[in-house]
């Protein structure tokens, strides 16, 4: 397992490099530059700016120099927030994003898994149908609509919760629920399917014939085993939380990294886009690795070799 982990980590370096290269070249190819403004600056000033940020050099030279700086732990300074290093912006905004994502993950598991388990144990009853309608609607509603509905009902009409920002715990509820809603729905559907399969196994019949109560069988025997395939879902969920955070942080005015990403792309803030992409890439690669390790650890029948 250790050699597997080391190998996977070694592969992730060229993967990140590729990701960085693609992003870098796509950004430079896109029309519009970071210092375009409505008023045309004198050519000397433009040339000076281009020279300062190496924008006048060939793209591959720029990329090589950027890689050299990254290798020294320097993500350069943002164009948009002049004088502020990207590492500092990331260090300030990443904890909020991770905290938001973590709470959303906890929410989705705490609600989604029991919902799926209950639906499966009451298959084809109104409980099952209601739970699954709930889950399908979660997959059918884009996150901005969930956000709008939640803000409309709980902030504007009922006045129970603040409509935006991220300070006291009460303000966390709406963004966390918005971000966690879709993963919650995915987990509920997947848990249900997986549980129904487990219900057909011999050992479940054995548990029943031993005289165990329905609840004991569902929660102690069936749920544990049906959660094994659910672990694989954590990979897509991590990706979902990352892209979901762009929108949630924008809508709720949360000072996280996702908000920076969209803004930086629009403003052509090359260093900031590159820095944030690199961090996201690392997070996604690591979370996929953790999911695979977790899967092998939970289910000893799985052998890691590829």
């Amino acid at each position, binding site marked *: 397992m250790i050699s597997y982990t080391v190998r996977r980590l070694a592969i992730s370096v060229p*993967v990140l490099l*590729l*990701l960085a290269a*693609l*992003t870098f070249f*796509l*950004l430079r*190819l*896109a*029309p*519009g530059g970071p210092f375009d403004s409505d008023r045309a600056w004198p050519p000397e000033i433009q040339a000076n700016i281009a020279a300062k940020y190496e924008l006048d050099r060939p793209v591959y030279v720029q990329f090589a120099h950027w890689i050299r700086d990254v290798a020294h732990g320097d993500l350069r300074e943002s164009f948009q927030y002049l004088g502020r290093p990207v590492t500092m912006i990331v260090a300030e905004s990443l904890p909020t994003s991770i905290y938001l994502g973590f709470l959303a993950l906890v929410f989705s598991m705490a609600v989604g898994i029991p919902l799926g388990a209950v639906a499966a144990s009451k298959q084809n009853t109104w409980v099952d149908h209601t739970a699954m309608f709930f889950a*399908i*609607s979660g*997959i*059918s*509603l*884009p*996150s*901005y*609509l969930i956000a*709008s*509905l939640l*803000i*409309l009902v709980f902030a*504007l009409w009922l006045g129970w919760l603040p409509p935006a920002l991220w300070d006291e715990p009460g303000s966390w509820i709406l963004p966390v629920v918005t971000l966690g809603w879709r993963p919650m729905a*995915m987990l509920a*559907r*997947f848990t249900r*399917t997986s549980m129904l399969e487990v219900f057909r196994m011999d050992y479940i019949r054995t548990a029943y014939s031993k005289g165990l109560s329905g609840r004991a069988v569902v929660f102690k025997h069936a749920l544990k085993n049906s959660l094994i395939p659910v672990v694989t*879902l954590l990979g*897509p969920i991590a*990706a979902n939380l*990352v*892209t979901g955070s*762009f*929108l949630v942080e*924008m*809508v709720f005015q949360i000072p996280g990294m996702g908000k920076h990403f*969209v803004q930086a*792309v*629009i403003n052509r803030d090359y260093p900031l886009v590159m820095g944030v*992409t690199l961090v*996201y*890439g690392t997070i*996604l*690669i690591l979370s996929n690795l953790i999911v695979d390790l977790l899967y092998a650890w939970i289910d000893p029948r799985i052998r890691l070799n590829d």
Partner: protein
Amino acid sequence: MINVPDSQIKAWKRFKKNRLALISLLFLVAITGFAVFAPLVTQYSYEEQNISQKLESPSTRHWMGTDTLGRDLYSRIVYGARMSLAVGIFTALFALVLGTLTGAVAGYLGGWVDHLLMRVVDVFYIFPSLLLAILLMLLLGRGVTGIILALGMTAWVTQARLVRGQVLQAKEMAYVEAARALGVSGFSIVFKHILPNLWGPIIVSLTMQIPSNIMSESFLSFIGLGIQPPYSSWGTLANEGFRAMRSFPHLIIYPGAILFFTMLAFSYLGDGLRDVLDPQGGGTIF
């Protein structure tokens, strides 16, 4: 008379029994009808402004109300359906063609071709799709074509993997071996024998792809990187509605509800089709 294979008639008969899926299909046909015949079913155009009638609540004249520029919301939703559905369908078709070709070639030829193509697919796979779409949008411009290409470039890999897997399986089947023994060329085997047998899973994946593309388009438009005004898609309408929602909730509720029911219908239709066409293809979550 058109010769419909037996299996397709059977599939249709089984499909008809699933009421929810059938209703969903009818709903989607109706929405598509509205979108196609938009000028016939609306009184106003999507860009006709009338400042003296701005931000009206639903009434007999504008039964879904008007927006901040006095444009008729119902007309904008119908024209928005055009945009959203067109992006959903054309992106899915783009992904279908590119993905099927890549998957079929990789699966049938195997060897280094397979290896090379699958590494390309892997690259696209690890790239978070919306991140890639956002960057491609910059390059391709914020028009309809830009969106279709950007989303298509992220969507085709799933299709390629699916088709490759199916082709690999089919390659071992007796009918393919028989065709090969008869001297049929590789090209004909793939396109005349294998792919026509895969129409079930392909249609199922298409019904799963379209809504996910509609969602992605509306996401991009909502964050301001998609369709630009005065054109409307369901995402841009939701974006405009979100900003005015405090005082004028109808601006977000109507486009939101239409989008929601469309997604729901695609979901039920997809489940229904999968049950009859592709029973082994487990739970797909778009």
